[in-house]
């Protein structure tokens, strides 16, 4: 019988009440919760668009919504999900909460900058919501010129401003993390004693800082072209629309690594805690994160194989795209090897981790199809690409995020959630996801282009399958909302270390005090050290 657990008297949640204490807080843990609320809101807004899109695509003729509305639907689904959910979610929610605790610091390097980042994120969100309410935007989340600069009549500028402002939120968060990880580690915590989540958050912050400014300038160039007729990408004046794609994808491909790298960090933690042993090949997994961050900047041309890029540039980008696949493969092999001879637990966070590894492998392998130029010519801009990146985004990032949320929920709220219900919802999400996106691989190879409001009847069967899967997935995502909120009030109290995991965050109370540790911990051993007996963890 585990010893009776009691909630610590003073912790960051009861350290000040009222709206002011939340809206002007500088505590990285509270800012993490502010992000959690905002990110969940944007997730369900984007998700609602996805449901309507899938309903529309259940029938070949475009009869549920007009083509004008459909174009706005998939654009807003893309913008909401990419810029307002996938990019900020793990770094700003789990990262903000855990980075200072995992390295034994009292807070991030610049707490005021951290709160400012949240306000910029919300301001950017406001602009995009205004654009949504004022009639939406129909350029697609990639807003290719010359359509976005010349012929689109919807409000491109507010959305572009929204993305511009929110971009600064991820730049400043990245900056905050880099400085914190460099300058504020606990005594004795050398780089190779850092948990792998810190390594991947560090790599993500590097990409954030190095990539986001380029999309900022691209958005400004598009806005300038729309407002002042500066002819940067306007072919009638001699501008080259392909240059827009170069500048756009220079950021947007590393952006997909911003989305998946933090999830990989979460998975490394979950696999280590799940098997209660050090991750196999710690150094290789750590350096793989950095390799992805660096190589990720060299490969953007594989989005433009058919877009008028020169043959020789296409070959360079193709070979580099294969190189960037290797570190991801190394990570997957190392996670699988970690499970060998581990004490493999079947708790919900670990189930999400195993789901992640399986689905991310499929996502990664289909990426090889797209890196092979000859096959890419056939499958790019079709539903094959849609299935590929949803396998990595939904099968990867969201699975990783949910796994991380469940794993650290006791530390965040001090409460345990309902394990059985969580397993059911994980299973539903897994089934719904595969049913939604696997048929799209076949659709893609058959040649159904993306962003189509109406399609020839012979694609209908697979589309109906996909739409059915989408409704299951939609339900699957609602269930965690229910039992996690419910656990806040009625969940059993979680002790400092309910999972028996190794890591600095499990040595402090849950929920942790505002300054994270009674006194700054000293680290003297490798990460993920599990002693012979685990009882002391249940203290």
């Amino acid at each position: 019988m585990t010893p009776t657990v009691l909630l610590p008297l003073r912790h960051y949640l009861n350290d000040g009440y009222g709206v002011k204490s939340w809206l002007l807080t500088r505590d990285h843990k509270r800012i993490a919760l502010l992000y959690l609320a905002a990110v969940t809101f944007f997730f369900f807004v984007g998700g609602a668009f996805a449901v309507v899109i899938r309903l529309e695509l259940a029938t070949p003729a475009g009869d549920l919504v007009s083509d004008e509305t459909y174009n706005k639907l998939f654009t807003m689904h893309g913008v909401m999900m990419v810029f307002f959910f996938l990019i900020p979610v793990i770094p700003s929610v789990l990262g903000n909460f855990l980075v200072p605790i995992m390295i034994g610091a009292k807070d991030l390097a610049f707490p005021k900058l951290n709160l400012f980042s949240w306000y910029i994120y919300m301001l950017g969100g406001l602009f995009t919501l205004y654009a949504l309410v004022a009639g939406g935007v129909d350029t697609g989340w990639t807003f290719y010129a010359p359509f976005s600069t010349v012929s689109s009549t919807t409000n491109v500028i507010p959305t572009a401003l929204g993305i511009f402002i929110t971009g600064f939120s991820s730049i400043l968060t990245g900056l905050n993390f880099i400085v914190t990880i460099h300058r504020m580690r606990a005594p004795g915590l050398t780089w190779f004693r850092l948990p792998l989540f810190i390594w991947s958050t560090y790599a993500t912050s590097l990409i954030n800082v190095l990539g986001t400014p380029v999309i900022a300038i691209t958005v400004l160039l598009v806005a300038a072209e729309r407002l002042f007729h500066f002819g940067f990408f306007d072919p009638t004046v001699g501008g080259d629309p392909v240059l827009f794609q170069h500048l756009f994808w220079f950021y947007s491909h590393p952006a997909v690594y911003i989305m998946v790298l933090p999830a990989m960090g979460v998975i490394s933690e979950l696999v280590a805690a799940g098997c209660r042993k050090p991750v196999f090949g710690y150094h290789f997994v750590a350096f793989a994160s950095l390799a992805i961050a660096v190589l990720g900047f060299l490969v953007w041309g594989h989005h433009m194989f058919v877009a008028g890029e020169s043959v020789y540039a296409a070959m360079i980008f193709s070979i580099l795209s294969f190189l960037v696949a290797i570190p991801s493969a190394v990570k997957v092999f190392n996670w699988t090897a970690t499970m060998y001879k581990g004490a493999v637990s079947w708790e919900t966070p670990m189930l999400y981790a195993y789901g992640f590894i399986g689905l991310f492998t499929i996502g990664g392998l289909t990426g090889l199809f797209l890196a092979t130029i000859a096959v890419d010519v056939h499958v790019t801009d079709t539903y094959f690409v849609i299935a590929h990146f949803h396998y990595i985004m939904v099968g990867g990032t969201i699975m990783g995020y949910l796994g991380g949320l469940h794993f650290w929920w006791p530390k965040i709220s001090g409460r345990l959630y309902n394990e059985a219900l969580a397993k059911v919802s994980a299973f539903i999400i897994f089934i719904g996801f595969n049913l939604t996106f696997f048929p799209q691989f076949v659709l893609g190879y058959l040649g159904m282009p993306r962003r189509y409001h109406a399609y020839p009847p012979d694609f209908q069967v697979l589309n109906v399958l996909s739409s059915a899967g989408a409704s299951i997935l939609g339900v699957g995502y609602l269930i965690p909302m229910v039992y996690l909120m419910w656990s806040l009030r009625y969940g059993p109290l979680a002790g400092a270390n309910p999972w028996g995991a190794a890591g600095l965050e499990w040595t402090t109370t849950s929920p942790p005090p505002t300054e994270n540790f009674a006194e700054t911990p000293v680290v003297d051993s490798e990460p993920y050290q599990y002693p012979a007996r685990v009882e002391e963890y249940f203290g």
Partner: protein
Amino acid sequence: MARLEPSDLPGDMTDHIVPTRVYYTIFALLMLGTALTVAIAYIDLGVLNIVAALTIAVTKATLVVLFFMHVRYSTRLTWAVVIGSVFWLAILLALTMGDYLTRSWQVYGSV
């Protein structure tokens, strides 16, 4: 506050105090560079004009970074950050121009 000489400053001032004469020499060099780059611009060197203008600009920029921004006396991490930013800019420039310069090669295969 009496004027303190650099030598008697308290404690472990990791940051090196750069004597003012270094600043003035750097300032003079920068002015010289500007004059030089304008002068060269008026001589027709063909493609060399761009090369000359850029080398002068790069040298001026390095002078400012090393001495005015104290990178010469600061930690290796700052060096890494500076060189990193230049490297990433080079990635964007090289691969984008790589596409534009090789586009005409396709001509011999007939459009």
